[in-house]
């Protein structure tokens, strides 16, 4: 019997006639003519017979992310917030500067969905424009952190030696200063304004990201594909950017998406002390700070920006969590 089976199976590969209902042919159908060696019984993706045309890494990540309900909520919410910020001027008929002091502190109404602030300006408009500023500064701070972290981390990880030591010690020094105090001191030094606040908040985020990148680079440096690239004569920088960085990006992305929440909190905190972005430029933090003074007579001014901040933090935290789980499936399964 075994011989017969073996004989039959030796006729596979499309040569000649074969029994359509034999287990082998059924298996063949399922694999659509591909080599049976590709059939992995223990591959969870194929256990139920599903198949993938492209086995892309990012596709897997996206798939896992979609399955995570909380992450999806976070993603959707974050997109909504970003859209609100981008399209703020179109969404509201009021200008954020028009004052109407005699009508200050109006409670929410059809005319003013969130009410008016202490200058009689429409609060919804201020909050929308404030979102623009807050998100913009948060992203700018993030860009700054990541940019500097990549440069420093790459240099430290790749070149090593004296350069690495100097960079690591400087990072130790910066990390010795509590991040809030660091942001405060730098903000006091640079003054108030959008890019100044972005740098002040971004500086605290450089160190952990830099260590992350350096760690990843150190881990990956000995890998074969790097050696291969060096062997065929690519310059150091090309190797760094083309081979190494794409592989170290995933923890960086996670850190970045979680970092936005921290940045927004830091920016609002700076406004509270009197640094950061100052009026009349609206920003959730400084609307809230002025609003806290009036909280007993007019709660909307402090509460609504606070709700926006909470929603933003919630959205980016969920998204970041989901992203981290998606990028590292071992944890969940």
């Amino acid at each position, binding site marked *: 019997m075994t011989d017969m089976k073996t004989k039959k199976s030796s006729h596979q590969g499309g040569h000649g006639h074969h029994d359509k209902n034999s287990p082998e042919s059924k298996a063949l159908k399922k694999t659509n003519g591909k080599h049976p060696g590709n059939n992995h019984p223990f591959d969870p993706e194929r256990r139920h017979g599903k198949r993938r045309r492209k086995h892309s890494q990012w596709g897997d990540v996206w798939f896992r992310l979609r399955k995570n309900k*909380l992450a999806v909520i976070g993603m959707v919410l974050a997109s909504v917030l970003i859209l609100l910020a981008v399209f703020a001027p179109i969404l509201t008929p009021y200008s954020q500067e028009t004052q109407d002091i005699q009508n200050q502190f109006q409670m929410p109404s059809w005319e003013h969905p969130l009410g008016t602030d202490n200058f009689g300006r429409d609060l919804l408009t201020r909050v929308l424009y404030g979102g623009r500023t807050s998100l913009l500064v948060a992203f700018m701070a993030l860009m700054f952190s990541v940019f500097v972290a990549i440069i420093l981390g790459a240099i430290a990880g790749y070149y090593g030696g004296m350069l690495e030591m100097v960079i690591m*010690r*400087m990072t*130790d*020094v*910066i990390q*010795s*200063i*509590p*991040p*809030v*105090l660091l942001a*405060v*001191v*730098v903000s*006091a*030094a640079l*003054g108030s304004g959008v890019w100044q606040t972005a740098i002040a908040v971004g500086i605290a985020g450089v160190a952990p990201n830099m260590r992350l990148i350096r760690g990843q680079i150190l881990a990956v440096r000995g890998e074969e594909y790097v050696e291969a690239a060096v062997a065929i004569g690519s310059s150091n920088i090309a190797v760094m950017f083309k081979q190494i960085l794409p592989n170290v990006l995933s923890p960086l992305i996670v850190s970045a998406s979680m970092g936005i*929440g921290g940045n927004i*909190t830091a920016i*609002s*905190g700076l406004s*509270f*002390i*009197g*640094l950061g972005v100052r009026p009349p430029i609206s920003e959730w933090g400084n609307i*809230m700070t002025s609003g*806290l003074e009036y*909280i*007993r007579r007019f709660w909307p001014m*402090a509460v609504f920006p*606070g709700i926006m*901040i*909470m*929603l933003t*933090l*919630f959205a980016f*935290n*969920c998204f970041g*969590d989901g992203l981290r789980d998606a990028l590292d499936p*071992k*944890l969940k399964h």
Partner: protein
Amino acid sequence: MAKYILKRFLWMIPILLCVIIVVFTVMYFTPGDPAMAILGNSYTPESYEAKVRELGLDKPYIVQLGNYLINIVTKFDFGKSYMNNRSVTTQILERLQPTLIIGAVSVLLSQLIAIPVGITAATHHGKIQDYTVSSLCIILAAIPGFLLAVFLMLLFCLKLNWLPAAGITNWYGYILPIVCSIFGPLVSSCRMTRSSMLEVIRKDYIRTARAKGVSEHDVIHKHALKNALIPVLTMLGMHLGGAMGGSILVETIFTVPGLGILMKNAIYNLDYPVVEGCVIFVSFIMSLLMLLTDLAYAAVDPRVRDQITGGGKKKRRKKAAQSMEGIAA
């Protein structure tokens, strides 16, 4: 081991010196004129010149930095406040106690709560406890600290009149600031404990322990916990440092006479010596704490301990092996 500890402590010195230099330099370039600030209404060009000379502000950057460093290192003297001419060191030491108390108590309490909760969530992964804890963590992480502080104040002080709204004249006054400071470290430690436990539980050695028949309680508490807690422990220093830095917001709202308020007022009044002194002081404490947690980490985790001291042992073993080979050959 002792050499390692000594080395770490010695490394702290240049780092702290660099911290002083960095902070001084950043404040040096901050706009604002302290001589003007002190003179205020009684400004005349002559008195201004005199004040500048008195404060030593006309000397070049290097000289000022040098004087500042020398004063700190030799006399522990952070200079004098521009606003009220009192020694900065005296003021810092005066205000240290409330900040330290709030920081230490809130971080300790947060760990006491976060670790068991994180463990429970991890051991009941996928069940209701896990979901509750995770959701709570996510929600709490989204609330900005000062909004929570004001809300709590309005609730407990105004509506319920249970607690004083400001000051720490009796110990009730500490409750709200501590509660507000707890949430940050609480949430992050809880999530870290949970994910760390989840990771450890799936490790092979846990499976081995279970297979060997060790009780579940022992598996969790004796084997898994120790390994899972290591990353949490290393964060302890950072949490304390963060609590001391974040005290600015909490202290402002509840008028706790600590370092945070001192710093805030100093920034507002451009009182640079006080700002520099506070930041440097807090950085000192934070470096020390991080060093201690690192050492504790090394003491607790035998793998790290081996790495530190094991260089010697490995060499000896290798030599022994080689000599054995030599004999065999």
